[in-house]
């Protein structure tokens, strides 16, 4: 189910939050509205953690993670590192990496099995990514952009990429990632997909400016409508027994 929300009047939800199948990181805002929306949707299932990275609120763009691990840039302070380690479940491995390209969320896009990275990423970082996140790593570009983490967002069920991605590129990426991909926009035509939305296997959060068309595209490609099969079965039963 896709939810529309804002962070302090900004529709760039993917910048201020990081959503995975095992946890959710949220930035600290002036009011608790942003955090409350996530909490209302997710807190029964996964931990929702308020944090900063290196004292900044752009947590979604600085870190990268999936259900196996979380990678943080070298600007993360020791206290933040400890806070994250304490708040996350034990299966999630937390590690800080020394990498020149410190905005890991912009350079790497991943789900639980595959990751796409910036072409100029260090060899060591690639190895750490493969080890900590437990993924297969591919160096790719998306629509000619090297910042793959910003211009595409994908989960285990599907993916959304930059609107100007060619059909051949789309097919190639689709075979690499083994998920269906669609070229689309978010937040009323914004091309920076991953900054405008954040997604996991059963839910997505988009900026308020996202049109109904964009939202329906998102719900279809990430298969969010079928995410709760129990709800569908209940509805069917109600209609059958209604007299």
């Amino acid at each position, binding site marked *: 189910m896709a939810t529309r929300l804002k962070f302090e009047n900004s529709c760039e939800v993917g910048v201020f939050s990081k959503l995975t199948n095992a946890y959710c990181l949220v930035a600290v805002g002036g009011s608790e509205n942003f955090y409350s929306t996530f909490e209302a949707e997710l807190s029964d299932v996964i931990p929702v953690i308020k944090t900063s990275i290196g004292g900044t609120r752009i947590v979604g763009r600085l870190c990268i993670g999936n259900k196996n691990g979380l990678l943080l840039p070298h600007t993360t302070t*020791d206290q933040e*590192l*400890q806070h*994250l*380690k*304490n708040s996350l479940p*034990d299966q999630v*491995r*937390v*590690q*800080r*990496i*020394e990498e020149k390209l410190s905005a890991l969320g912009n350079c790497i896009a991943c789900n639980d099995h595959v990751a796409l990275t910036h072409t100029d990423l260090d060899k060591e970082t690639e190895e750490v990514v493969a080890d900590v996140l437990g993924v297969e790593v591919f160096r790719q570009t998306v629509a000619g952009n090297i910042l793959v983490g910003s211009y595409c967002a994908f989960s285990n069920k599907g993916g959304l990429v930059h609107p100007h991605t060619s059909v051949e590129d789309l097919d190639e990426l689709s075979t690499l990632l083994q998920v269906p991909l669609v070229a689309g926009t978010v937040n009323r035509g914004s091309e920076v997909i991953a900054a405008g939305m954040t997604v996991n296997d059963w839910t997505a959060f988009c900026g308020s400016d996202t049109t109904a068309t964009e939202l329906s595209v998102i719900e279809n490609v990430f298969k969010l409508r079928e995410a709760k099969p129990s709800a569908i079965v209940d509805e069917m039963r109600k209609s059958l027994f209604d007299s």
Partner: protein
Amino acid sequence: MKRNPRKVKWTKAYRRVHGKDMTQDSTFEFERKRNRPERYDRNLAENVLKAIPKIDKIRVSREERHHKNRMKGNKEKDRKEAKRELDTSIHLVKDPIASRDIKVNVTQQLPEENPLMEE
């Protein structure tokens, strides 16, 4: 004026590079930056806090030992230098007026003391 700390005599960088201060020791491993945090454990934290002053003490004693080892071969040299200085430049140290013999007139002073003692 930009000066390379490794060439400026009084900096730690110079001392470490030129082996004046200890560089490699197992006590420095405790202060290294770590990238994989451990979950908070009260016992662990307590033990660490207790260990910090102990590690400090050990580090200081090892640094002193290192310094002493460095200064070890100096006794012979110091003694030779001192001997040479004594032979050649003793005139700088000895005062010619102080080394002259002073004659004291003992007999004149004795009768002076008697009236004092009688009082």
